[in-house]
């Protein structure tokens, strides 16, 4: 049975990792706390659900559509709105993003209503070594690895990635070297939104989606990034798996109503004892 507990912990952990990768990119690299993250995830999930249900497209393609839509949305939000305050103190951009989140969230409640909606696609579960593993969650595990790998490739080996790091290091120096800073910010935000939408697509297979989940997802992403650490690409992966395992064992030892508390207590401990997170480092890559 311990093996099943471990498997459960890893599976929920990879869902969490998917959730947090986009947030970690924007927070760790751009140093913007993207309060819109949870909303992006839910919007991506809604696009996936509506494409799959109304247009009859397969969930995978619908998720890709969701990613494309959210990339454009994220890009525009950053380029037209957040860019205006990106040079101002972080409190100002935080307030702006928070306000946008309230707007978009309530628009979603008006438009989609709070009634839960689901993708009625059941991939079932497989039995491996006597363990029951949900196929949708295994898919999420694969997605978490793909997203982390993509992020790594982006930041290390692509022109845009190096530009993003350069802008983070020193905005003015980057501009002097010919990097179009507002465009870089907008593209990064767009990529963060795209990853959020990818997570949304995976989550749509598992959870009934309502606009009210955006707060829950944002909270979890925050905890995961603090636990795992910023400034390093696999931070979200480490944090997600750690949180998944901690909550799992918290459930068994203390009972399910304490599992979230366990996660937050651990986050507090990490902040006090090892502020850079379990895997994080100070500085940039």
């Amino acid at each position, binding site marked *: *049975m311990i093996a*099943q*507990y471990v498997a*459960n*912990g890893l*599976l*929920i952990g990879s*869902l969490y990792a998917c959730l947090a990768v986009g947030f970690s990119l924007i927070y760790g690299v751009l140093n913007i706390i993207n309060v819109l993250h949870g909303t992006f995830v839910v919007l991506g999930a809604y696009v996936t659900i509506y494409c799959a249900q109304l247009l009859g497209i397969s969930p995978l393609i619908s998720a890709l559509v969701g990613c494309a839509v959210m990339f454009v949305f994220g890009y525009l939000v950053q380029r037209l709105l957040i860019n205006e305050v990106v040079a101002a103190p972080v409190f100002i951009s935080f307030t702006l993003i928070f306000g946008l989140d309230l707007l978009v969230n*309530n628009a979603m*409640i008006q438009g989609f*209503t*709070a*009634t*839960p*909606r*689901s993708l*009625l696609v*059941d991939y*079932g*579960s497989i*039995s491996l070594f006597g363990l*029951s*593993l*949900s196929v*949708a*969650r295994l898919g999420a595990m694969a997605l978490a690895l793909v997203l982390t790998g993509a992020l790594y490739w982006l930041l290390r080996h692509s022109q845009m990635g190096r530009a993003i790091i350069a802008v983070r290091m020193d905005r003015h120096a980057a501009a002097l070297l010919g990097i179009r800073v507002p465009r870089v910010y907008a593209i990064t935000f767009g990529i963060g939104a795209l990853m959020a939408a990818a997570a949304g697509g995976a989550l749509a297979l*598992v*959870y*009934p989606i*309502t606009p*009210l989940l955006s707060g*829950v997802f944002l909270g*979890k992403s925050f905890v995961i990034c603090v636990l795992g650490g910023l400034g390093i690409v696999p931070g979200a992966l480490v944090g997600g798996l750690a949180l*998944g395992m901690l*909550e*799992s064992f918290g*459930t*068994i030892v203390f*009972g*399910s*109503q304490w*599992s*979230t508390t366990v996660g937050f207590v651990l986050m507090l401990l990490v902040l006090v004892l090892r502020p850079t997170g379990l895997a994080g480092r100070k500085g940039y890559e």
Partner: protein
Amino acid sequence: MLLRQLLKYASCTLALGLAGLAGSPAVFAADPIRLGTPLSLTGTLADEGMKEQSGLEMCVEAVNAKGGVKIGNEQRKLELIKYDYQSETSRAVQIVQRLLTVDKVDFLFAPYGSGDTKATAVLAERYNVPMIATSAATEAIYHQKQKNLFGIPFPNRAIAEAEVKFYKTNVPQAKKIAVFALNSLFPKAIAAEVRQMAASEGYEVVYDRLYSPGTLDFANVLTQIKAANPDWLYATGYIQELILLRRQMASLGMNLPVVTMTAGAAYPDFGQNLGPLAENVTSNAWWWHPSATYKDAYIFDTALNYVEAFKKKYNKEPTYLEAAATAGCEVLALSIEQAGPANIDAVRNVLASGRFETFYGPIKFGANGQNEVASPLLLQIRNGKYVTLDPKEVKTGDLIVSVKAQ
């Protein structure tokens, strides 16, 4: 220059004057009766809040269509003064405070659910304003010896009793029960009632735990429950978590004889989100059957008429939540009519002593303010529709024992 300034002042004054005229009430209409309505239109209980709103609006429209409530020679319309408390208890309390002190409403409706009703009932008592609770069934709220709280749903205990007796009789081979409850006033209370009653009827309670709202993963809980091998799983909570719970039961390959889910599973959205996984899950409701022969002389005539009118306006079927809200408002309107001129003490007395025959069934408030007339319905989901298992008078099918992981 002076002329321009003069023109500016003149146009401003004219505009204000016109606005004033437009805003002033018509001279001949009597003032409406103002009903304070805190609603959870956003937040985790948004779905339930919207349902409550629909139910209340059905009643207000029907009563106003008749010209309003008849008090002596004049007729006064009903008016809902609505605010959204965002599913936060503290905000519900603030809003009820505001309704009482700033808006000075005549009567109140309680917010959704036992927890928030309990928190705000204290205010109703302090300001001596009758409050109708349409969605709170936990007895603990009504034990506070209040004069102003009137609850439409009958006590949890009636449902727990009906369920345990039914399953004991119809599934005699079931010996072990697992209880898993949401850590919120009503789901926790009803799970506790069921656990106690099951234990006293000879069931072995193999699992008895709580979970918090917003839980994203039940895999480990279900692994533990699966290992305990229960015959009957009794899970309580609101729709979001119950859907997830059922899904994860399937992915862990759990097959159980009886699975009962309380409070979320009685809404059609549960079946819509689960598809075939909802098959054979049982639940319960405070009342709802269109074919029940309750007659209503005031509005809607029969249950069937109510369902038709609701479907026409909202394009979907009502659940017991909407019906209870409509009935709550109706009972208030009836009491105001019977009590004559708007004298709150008289209205309160009528509420406390009267028996109301409504499309929802007979309603009579007991000494503690809760409806004494109990009519629990036990339901099972089959093919996306609800089959009524109990009581025999309205039964439409027999229990099928087996909830499979697909």
